[in-house]
Each structure stands twice: as C-alpha cells, then as structure tokens.
C-alpha cells in the first residue's frame, strides 16, 4: 500500500465507463452452496459464522466472495469486509493486477508466541520450522492459543502439539494430522449416569425455587471467574429484574495469555457446565443462550457441538432455551464482555461504552446475563454441596476456590484448583512440585498478560480478587506465569505490550495509539519513564475497556519493581 492510487481517468476509465460489474452468478452460486441450504442469510448476527464457512472451504476470503455474501445477506460490501478484516483468522485476499486470485496456503502451522510459549522456546521454533517444513507450509506466530501448560505449543492446521519440537511438528505435518480429536471425556450418557441434570430437575420440579437458588449463589461468594469478579448471585438478581426477553451470553473466549482453565474443564466434563448454564437460564428467565467459544479451541468445539446435539435430542427440560454455539475468529478483545456481544451480533469486536451495562442493554439491545464458562461450571456443584462448601475453602482470610492456570518455570504446570488466597510460594510448592529444574523464582504474573508483574519478594501475598490492587496488580482469570532468574522482565513486558498492540481493537485513541507508542518506547534499552508515566495515565483513565486500561500494567510494574533491569 505504498504507491499512491492513480487518478481514475488514467487507470480506471474502462471500469467506470461500463458501471459497476454485478456479482458473478457463478460466484454467487458457489457461496450459496458453501453456506449450505440450511444457512439463514437473513440473520445479520450469523455473518461471522458464514465467513467461517467460506474461510474453511477456500482457506481464505476472496473479495468477490465477500461481495457475494453481502448480496445474499442484503448487507453492504463494506459491512461484510470490515468484519472479515477485523478477525485474525480470516485472511481477506484481493485479485492481482491480472485478475488472478492468490493461492491459499496449502497448510499453516501456527506457533504460539504467548509469554509462556516464548519462555518455552517458541522463538527458536519459529526460526527453524520454515526451512524444515518447506515453502508449501506457512509458519506463523500467533498469540496465546491457551495451551500454556504445554509450552511451547504449535498447531498444525487445527491439530495441537504439546511441548512442540521441530521434530514433533514435522512428524505431525508428515503424518497428515490436521484436526483435533478430543481426548475421552464425560459425554452425555456418562454424565447422566453420574447424576448430571439432577439439580436442574430439582429446580424444574419445584423442589428448589428460584429464590433459594439465587440465595445459595449469593452466599457461596462465587464471583465471576472471567476476571472481573462480579458477584454471580447478584448478577442473576439484577438481570432477572430487567424486562424480558432476556438473553444469556457465555464467554469461552479464553484468550488472556496464560489462561487455560476453561478448556481444562470443558475437555473433561462439559455437562457440568451445561447444567450450570441451564440452571442459570431457568433462574434468571432466559429465552436464548449464546455460547461464544474461541476459535483456537477446535477440540472443545467438537465436544460442544456433539454434546449440544445430544442435549437437544434428549432435552432435560421442557421449553429448553435455545443454545447457539458461536465461533470466535481470532480476537482477544472478544473476551471483553461487550466486545463479545458485538461479535455475537456479527460485528467487529469493539467494546461498547458503558453505561448502559449489558445487564440492561446487552445482546441485540436486550438485558443480558453474561458469564464466564467456569462461573457456570461451579453452579451445580455449589448447589449440590451447598454455599458453605464453596465458602469453606480459602486461606489467609480469603474464601472460596480458584482454578489457577499455572505455567512458566515450574516443575508441574497445569490447572490447579486451590484455595483462594493462597500465596504464590504456596501454590508453587504445594501444587506445582516446586520450581523447574535449575530455575529460581524471580518474578511472576499473577493474572495473565494484564495483571501486572510482581517480584519474588511479593511471593507471599495472598492471591485473590482485591488483594493485589495495592501492589498495582490484579488476579483476573488467575493465570499465573512464573519467571525465573533466567528471564528478564523487560523482555516479558515487550512481549506483552506487543500482544496488546496486536490485539487492540483500535477503537479508542489511548489504546490504539498508546499500545503502539508504548511498544516503541520500551523497545529501546533506555525507557523514557516520564513519557511512559503520562502514557500509562491516559491509557488507564481514558481507554474504553479493560484492554487499554490494563495494558500499561506490565510496563509500570517493571519500572516500579525492577529498576535494576533498566539501569
């Protein structure tokens, strides 16, 4: 895009002379066939689903295909293109000067360059794989794919490889591994045999009433586990008091680098989540549910598609709310609740200004109950075991359980269900088998990319909502990344700021321009601390959503806790 576009009378005359060309009938037919007879082209909210169908079929999105889709959906081309070009998993391609369309890459290998994978050697993989795999295979770095405990992670088309090496990736490519067949899990029958949907039936039969269920939720102290920590019972009560129809949106866009807990539970026991979902829908009076799953979780998608079909075939309740599974398309920002709502509506995932809050004006303008996967996952267990059971856990005066996604320099990374308020040192020692061989604790990220960076001397602070704010950090989704003395936090901050820049939606100035400027400033050895402080302030004060507001955290923490690295 460097050369200026020439004046029309020089190059475009022919086209103008004959007016706009109509969408080619063959292309239109091809797109109609690709979408399938069942596809509902009258629903704008299905735009991203339709883009997926085309992208899956052709490996890319040609602009003439976008034009055909726009015509079928009665949208303008701009409305389709701006959405398609927003999401990283869609590659919009244009014809060359001779009218030829570029070939879609035969195969793409994605190497995660999230912080845990970078610590695990992703850079090295990225450097070596292209030569090893040859020109046919495209190797690209991608932001965190949610497999931090398996760092470094690579994905051959949709086939994930844990602790990837050049050899294991090559072997997978050669073996033709392209998809992800999930490991065995509790399917519908097995889950039912173990009592799944029993609690739901108790609710429906009148054995439990809405008030008692909401009370239990309130007194359990369960808070939103996506990161914001809003008390769940209270949220149910608020949305329930709004006028119908009410909707629910479930957030499984688990994109915060370092976080993989939702995937962990979903890969094992999807029906505990689905029962929680139906109980919440029943209690709040929800008509339609939308489950938004990040695109990277191909195995989870297979599980959910299967189990939702099973559920539909044997509905555990009459008038079950409709549950639509929606596929993200590669956008961290869609984990932000209002951006996710925009995405479900088939739009660019750009957060909304609040107020109004989604509980009042959410999906399709309706009051919306929005929950993280894990929050719903705990609902059946809390109802079965009682509010006191959940609240009885906890350490250092904190209450409840937290699922920590632990990665980085520990011996045994993974999801650790531990008492809320546990300290990092306790978590490493008691749950992770200590530090990895040859590594000594230096620093840690308590809450993924956004939650800031704390030094080893603050490894005894209880980890929970509200406990880390005094230190300029927060726990968020409880994604703990452990750093050792082999690591430099300045490099970590650069990785994280590059991530935020890459994932900023671009809507508001402080985040769009701020993440870029911050990345540029910290690229050098000498950081302009005064300028960074000003930038941090405007990003925190004036960004529309949490991405921009939290993006300065790692940089601020480096300046605050690790001045020696900047000396």
């Amino acid at each position, binding site marked *: 895009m460097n050369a200026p576009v020439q004046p029309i009378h020089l190059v475009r005359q022919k086209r103008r002379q004959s007016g706009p060309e*109509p969408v080619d009938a063959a292309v239109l037919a091809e797109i109609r066939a690709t979408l399938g007879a069942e596809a509902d082209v009258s629903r704008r909210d299905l735009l991203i689903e339709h883009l997926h169908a085309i992208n899956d079929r052709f490996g890319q999105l040609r602009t003439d295909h976008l034009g055909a889709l726009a015509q079928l959906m009665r949208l303008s081309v701009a409305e389709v293109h701006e959405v398609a070009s927003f999401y990283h998993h869609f590659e919009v391609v244009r014809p060359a000067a001779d009218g030829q369309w570029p070939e879609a890459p035969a195969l793409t290998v994605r190497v995660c360059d999230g912080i845990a994978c970078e610590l695990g050697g992703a850079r090295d993989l990225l450097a070596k794989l292209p030569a090893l795999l040859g020109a046919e295979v495209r190797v690209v770095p991608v932001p965190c794919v949610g497999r931090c405990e398996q760092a470094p992670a690579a994905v051959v088309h949709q086939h994930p490889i844990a602790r990837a090496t050049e050899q294991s990736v090559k072997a997978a490519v050669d073996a033709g591994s392209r998809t992800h067949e999930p490991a065995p899990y509790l399917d519908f029958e097995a889950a039912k045999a173990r009592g799944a949907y029993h609690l739901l039936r108790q609710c429906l039969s009148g054995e439990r009433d809405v008030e008692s269920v909401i009370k239990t939720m309130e007194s359990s102290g369960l808070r939103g586990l996506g990161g914001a920590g809003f008390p769940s019972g209270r949220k149910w009560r608020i949305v329930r008091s709004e006028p119908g129809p009410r909707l629910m949106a479930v957030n499984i866009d688990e994109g915060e680098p370092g976080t993989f807990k939702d995937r962990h539970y979903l890969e094992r026991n999807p029906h505990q989540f689905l029962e929680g979902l139906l109980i919440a829908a029943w209690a709040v009076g929800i008509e339609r549910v939308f489950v938004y799953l990040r695109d990277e979780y191909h195995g989870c998608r297979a599980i959910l598609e299967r189990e939702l079909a099973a559920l539909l075939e044997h509905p555990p309740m009459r008038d079950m709310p409709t549950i639509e599974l929606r596929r993200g398309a590669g956008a961290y920002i869609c984990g932000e609740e209002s951006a996710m709502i925009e995405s479900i509506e088939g739009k660019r995932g750009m957060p909304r200004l609040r107020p109004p809050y989604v509980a009042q004006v959410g999906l399709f303008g309706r009051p919306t109950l929005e929950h993280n996967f894990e929050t719903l996952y705990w609902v059946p267990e809390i109802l079965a075991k009682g509010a006191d059971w959940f609240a009885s856990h906890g350490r250092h005066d904190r209450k409840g359980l937290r699922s920590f996604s632990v990665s980085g320099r520990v011996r045994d990374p993974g999801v650790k269900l531990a008492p809320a308020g546990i300290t990092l040192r306790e978590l490493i020692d008691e749950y992770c088998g200590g530090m990895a061989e040859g590594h000594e604790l230096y620093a840690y990220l308590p809450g993924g990319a956004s939650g800031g960076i704390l030094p080893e001397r603050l490894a005894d602070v209880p980890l929970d909502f509200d406990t880390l704010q005094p230190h300029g950090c927060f726990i968020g989704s409880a994604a703990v990344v452990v750093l050792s003395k082999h690591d430099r936090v300045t490099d970590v901050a650069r990785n994280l700021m590059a991530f935020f820049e890459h994932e900023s939606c671009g809507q508001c100035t402080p985040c769009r321009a701020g993440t870029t400027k911050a990345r540029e400033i910290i690229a050098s050895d000498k950081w302009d601390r005064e300028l960074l402080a000003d930038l941090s302030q*405007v990003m925190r004060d004036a960004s529309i959503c949490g991405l921009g507001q939290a993006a300065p955290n790692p940089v601020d923490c480096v300046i605050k806790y690790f001045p020696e690295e900047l000396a």
Partner: protein
Amino acid sequence: MNARTPNDALVEAVPTVEFTLDGKTVQAPAGETIWNVALAHGVEIPHLCHKPGLRPDGNCRACMVEVKGERTLAASCCRSVSAGMTVDTQSDRAKKSRALVLELLMSDAGVASADHTNESELTHWARECGVDSVRFAPREADYAAPDLSHPAIAVKLDACIQCTRCLRACREEQGNDVIGLALRGSHAKISFDADEALGASSCVACGECVQACPTGALMPARDAGLAQITKSVDSVCPYCGVGCQLTWHVGPDKKGEDVIQFVTGRDGPANHGRLCVKGRYGFDYVRNPKRLTTPLIRRDGAKKDPADIDRVKRGEVALETLFRPASWDEALDLAAGGLKRLRDDALAKGLRGNDIPLAGFGSAKGSNEEAYLFQKLVRQGFETNNVDHCTRLCHASSVAALLEGIGSGSVSNPVADVAQSEFIFLIGANPVVNHPVAATWIKNAVDRGATLCIADPRSNALARRAKWHLAFRPDTDVALLNAMLHVIIGEGLVDEDFVAARVNGYEQLKASVAEATPERMSEICGIDADTLRKVARAYATSRASIILWGMGISQHVHGTDNARGLIALAMVTGQIARPGTGLHPLRGQNNVQGASDAGLIPMMLPNYQRVANAEARAKFEQLWGTPLADHLDATPGLTVVEIMHAASEGRIRGMYVEGENPAMSDPDLNHARAALAGLEHLVVQDIFATETAILADVILPASAHAEKWGSYTNTDRLIQVGRPALAPPGDARQDLWAIEQIARRLDLPWNYWQAADGDGRLGAEAPVARAYEEMRAGMSPLAGVPWSRLAREEAVVTPAAREDEPGDDVVFIDSFPTADGRATLVPTTFKPGPETRDADYPFVLTTGRVLEHWHTGAMTRHASMLEAISPAPLVSLHPEDASALGIAHGAQIDLSTRHGSVRAIASLSPDVQRQQVFLAFAYWEAAANHLTGDAIDPFGKIPGFKVTAVRVSAVA
C-alpha cells in the same frame, strides 16, 4: 425555519435532572449528554469524533471529563447526565488526559492534517489543549497511501485519526454504506467497500464524508479545499425537487476569476446539511467554456437541419458556422419581432387563443418569478394559453388525478415525514438516484424501524432495506393497486369513519375492484397473491402509512389511472391528514412545484385557477391591468406534446423556449426535432447551446442558477431563496431581464427591471422581489410570505396564510380543497398500453435518470466531476439476457424501437428484470427519446416514457 424537522415528533417531554457541573448546580433534561449541557453553559469541551448531528461515538477520547466517584474518566459526548452527578470538566486529570489524547493523535496525523486542510479540527484542539510539541514518534509512514482515484474526493488517510465521522456520515446519515472501518488496532483504516480505491468503489460521491472529516483526510479533489475563499453565499441547490440548502464558497481561480471552489450543505428544513453528488460536486458547469456568452443569430442561409444537432455535439460542425454573434438589441429585436409578427398576423385574421400560432416553454429549473413572468408573457403578450413546461413530461398525470380527486396537486406531507411513518410505500420512484437526500430520510426511517415496501419493476439501492420489493411487470400498476384495494375492502380494513366523513364514490370503487382478486391481478402483475395481501394489510393497518411515488407512476399512457389508484388507497384507509401519512408525488425539478403553482401550465392561471373560470381571469386582468377577456380564450392551451404535434402540422409557427430542451426531453425525438426545425421562428434562451438551441433562429445567452436571485418551491411546498454567487460570463444576461425585454417589445408595459437594477447582467434582488410580490397578490397560499419574510427566514412552507405563523407542512387535515370538501374516488381498470412486445421488439425499455446527470444533461454534462464519474450512456441489461444475446459487460449494443434506434454501452445489472432494459435520457450520444413513442395519457397528456417495446442486439 418553520418546517418540522424529522426528529421533532420523536422528542417527548423528558424530566429534568439537577447535577453539578464545574462546581455549579445546573439543570438539564435527563438523557442529555454532558458535552451538550456543558456547551449550553458556555464550555465547549474538546472533541474530534463527535460532531453535532452525528451519533456520538466516544472513540477519540478528546472530550474526557471527571465524574466524581468513578474509577476512570468519562467521554462527555456519550455520557448522559444523571441526578446528583458531579462533573468536573476542568480538573487537572481531565485536562491532562485530553492533552495526551491530542498529543497521541498529533503524532499520528498532525503534520498531514495541517497540510491537507486549512480548517483542521485536530490542530485546533491540540492548540486549545496546550499541545505545542509532540513527544511520540510519528505513525508508520506506510499506514496508508494517498488515493486520488476519485474525480471529486481526495483520500489522504495519513491525516486520518480513525474517528469514524465519515463512516457514520456515510452509513447512518446518508445510508450509502460504502465506508467501513477495516482491519484493527493501529492498522484500523477507513476503507471503501472491500477496501477498493474510492474511484472504483460503489461510492455515490454525496461528499457527506468530506463534510464530516475533521482532519482533511477526506477533501475535495485537486486541493479545492485549500483554495482562497473570498465569499460564501447561502443559496439552494439547482437540481432536484428536494430543495437542499447549500453554501457556495467562491474564490479566485488561477486566472484570478471568481469561481465556486466547493459547496457545503446548510441546515435547511429539507436537507439538514446533507447534499448529494449533483448538489455538492455539480457546480462548475457555471464556468464551463461552452457557456453561451453572447447572443447568437442564425446565419443567412444556414438551414435548420435536425441532423446538425449530433454534428455540433460531436464537434463535426462548429456552432459558429450556423450562428453569428449579435448585440443584445439586435437579438432581442429579432426575437421579439418574429413573435410579434406571428401574433399580429393571427390577430389580424381574427384568430384567438389556441389558434394563435405561438407557444412558450418555460422551465421548472427557473425561479418562481421567471415562471410567473414567462406565463404572463405568453398569456398577456402572445395572447394564448399555449404555455407549458416539462412538468408535462413528469407529473402531469399525478397532478391531474390529484386535482380531480382531492382538489390539490401538491403533496399532503413533506418527505421527511417518513420519520413518523410506520409503513412507507414507495412506488415507481428511485429516490436514491433522483431525490438522493430525500432517500436518506427513508433510509434513516427504515434503520429506525419503519417498514419499507418498494413497488417497481426495477430494483434500486433502497431494496436492500425494503421488507418487500414488488418487482411487478412493467405497466401493470393498475392491477397491482386494484388488488390491494380489493384486499383492503374485502378484509374490512377500510377506515369507515374517514370514508363516511370525507370521501365520495366509495361504493363505485368497491364495485369496480370487486373482481380484482389478488389471484387474478397476480396473473397480470406477476406478484403472488399472498404477497399482495400482506402488503395491502400492512399498508392499511399501520399506525401511519405514507405513499411516495415518482415517474414510474406518472409516465404512462394510463399514468392518471395509476395515480388514482394511489389516491384511492390513501382515502379508503384514511392514511392521510396526519403526520407520517399521505400522498407525496416526488417532484423532479428544483422548481417544478413552484413553476406549476405560478401558472406555467396551459390550463391554469397562477395558483391553479382554471383559465375557463371567468372570475379567475377577471382577477388577473385586474392584477395585470390588461383586459384579457378580449383576447385570452377561456379554453386551456396546448400541452407540450400537443404543441409539438401542432408545430409539425404548422398550427404553431413560433416558439419561445426558456431553459427547456424539448429536442432531448420530448418523446419520439425524430418527430419532435423535425417539428422544432420546421418552426418559422424559434427563440431559445439558455446557458448552453442545447440540442433545441441548435435549431433556433435566435439564441439568448442566459444566467445560471448561481448567478441570479429567485425563489424556488421544493417538493414539500417549501419556498426558499436562491442568491447569486457569480456574475454571468461574457455578455450573458439575467433571464428575468430578458423575458421582460421581449415583453416590452411585444408592447407590454412591464417595469420590473428598472434603471437602478443595472443592465441585466448582474443578478438584482429588487426586480425579483417586484415580480414575486405581484405573483403573491394573485396566489393565496403565499399570503403570509412577503419577499421580506422569505429573505429573512430562508424557507417558508406554503400554504402560509399569516405572516406571523409557520405554514402548513401537513395539509388536508380537516377537509380537501374541493367544492364539497370531500375527496372523490375514481375507479380504474387495467388496460394494456399501446407498446406491445412482439418477436421484433421483445424487450421493454424504461427511460429515466442516472444519479450524476440531471434531466437532458444540459447542466450536468458540462459539470466536470459529474461527467468524469458518469461519462457514457449505459444500458442496464439483465446478466442472463446478456449472456443469451452474447453481450459482455461494457460492450456496445444497439437498441431499436418502432420509433428509432440508438447505440449505447451494456452495463449488466440484476436490477432490471429479464427482458427489461433501462437507459437514461441525459446522453446526446444515445438520446433515449429517439426510442420512445409519443402516445399520451388522455388526462395528464403525459407520454408513456416508462414502457417502449425494444429490440436489443450486440453490435456486429
């Protein structure tokens, strides 16, 4: 400004809240934004993405303020005030945040913005916020390359701050949906369609984005936006009937001569700042070198040959070989002398009225005052009623039906009333092309929840927003409408009270549509019966349904029947006389309403007073000080097509044509041009050597719209003021002056243009005001609108009975202006027209307009940017027909009818049906009216331009 704005009715009384603003307790309506309240209290908070009139978006963050108790700052343009809130707009934290935002944006776009525009809001607010240096590195240089592919708009996104004002203007105001925000993060970029170059995109060049852009990233092409502006003149658009108010920005060109540099929209009642491509970019015809600058007289021995038209147009014959320059005195003497001789000879022979062999064509493009004086000249000076104008070719049948049915030919409700409609029935109209700004109100209404039904054989850009597009078979409107009437009556959806109180002829109508079942009519019109039922129900039962129609209804040999059907729909359902309801024939030309009002039609004196009415004649005898009854026949004069027939038969021998171009606009051009060439004496007054002028004896070089004073009445009955921005070129003169000069030479004692008003070259207000005031004395709807009020208020909707009250934007509220105050229904039955398709002529040709070209193209084809965008005659042809005929997109094709043939360029489009083609009549290279026939509607006397049987073939 007294016409209702679209949003007025939506505003309900809201409670007031009290809150603290910068330490003061203030009150404001709940829901009002902090930004607006602050402005009302004298504080303009910095802002870039926010522009009053556009939906606030809150993305730039330049307007952040501190709200007590909140963790982050709030965007004042979006945040509503609430009771007890404490807002600090001037806290250090807020000010610092705003300054940082400006500094970030300046680092991205500041240098480029200062380079591209003299009015950068970015640099302005940076200065205001104390940002005098930028500490951040500039944006990467490859963010966006300049895009100069469009003839009218320059795109230089290096100055873009991604504020999306252009996007909201394009999509939420104009509803053109071309601009998107593509990509994301710092790469997020304004793009057109699927990121096309602007010139290759579907952009319709309304320029709303340019008007909205705060940084110069979107600007008029060729740096026109950087030109020196010496004066800005408020006026009204010269093109369509919407009547957009605009401002001409005038400054010297390279030679130091004043030209219009660019145009901006004004907040008029009809447009609220919006314009379309013609209004915004179609202004430089005024300074086209082909303008007529001196009177021309046909050379001795230069025969009038219709074939000269194409020769001159193609440049094969120079105009100077046919005409010689002359002085105004010589030209006027010759022009008037010829007319006088023909009149006096006829009078001497005892001929009267229609038998006087003279006729005049005035123009709907001229002002009310010109129209008024022109018809007065013909009636008083030619002593005949043979005066008409192109309304005959547009809405004559609509007006005939409306006058017959409800006693008034004007609209019942303004277009903008669609904002209050629940159901919009748009039939036989393509406002996106012909009334673009009116179309934006329709789009806005649909986007806010109104239901749109389009009934048109052709599709158009509004169809995407329509719930129904009834693509019925051409020429079967009556069947379609009768089916709807049948359903409404049969299903008990008639508003019985309204009918009982206000409608005559219901029983006859009921009987006449009894057999018109949806099933039977479906066979004729091709729309399935179920859909006909649904649409009829939706129209009848909505809270407020409005009908808008255009030439697709009127330009048929049964156009009056078509309009009768629409009137019947509104009457039986009572969908009239309330906001958001009614009947609106979308008027084509900027002053077609006013020209008709002023009596520029053969059967009526000003204000639709029939010439047959002795009382009316007496009134004008009094006003004009002339005993008309002696001479002026009480029978209506001839209409446009009748005049052409009379000319070819020798019954009309002399004509004065002012600003009209019948050699392009009339049907069956071979015949019409021959008739014009056969006239003994033809005087043409125009700004260009039009096709008609090439056949003239005398050509008088006239003034363009932007060179004169005048009032113009839009489709909403809104009367507005046009003002001169430029002097006419060379020795071109004011039309009003020239008309009067002719009149004086016909011995009429006129004295509008007085010595103090100049020599007729420069525009002058006083003579226009004199003509207006005389006209007003004969027209009761203008009783409350003296010229002084018009000049003061810019726009007054008529009828306006009192000077101290607004006019009536919705009329017929209590009664219709008929003898008994009731409407009369006229039953119709479907009859096929004369243009039948057969094996030789298997297609249907529909003629009309394209967005960029006005009428016969006399103005717009001389406007450089419009011509660059739309330079060639395109025939819309269905892709399947094209492939069957072996015709490629862009190929040359021949169109032949029983009347003539032309060669044009195929443009494949699914907007036309199979076996239908469409061609605009603006192109002399492929003059569409060579193809049309001159069969006319018996009541409106309008030709059936919409349906001609045609053969389509590839050029061998």
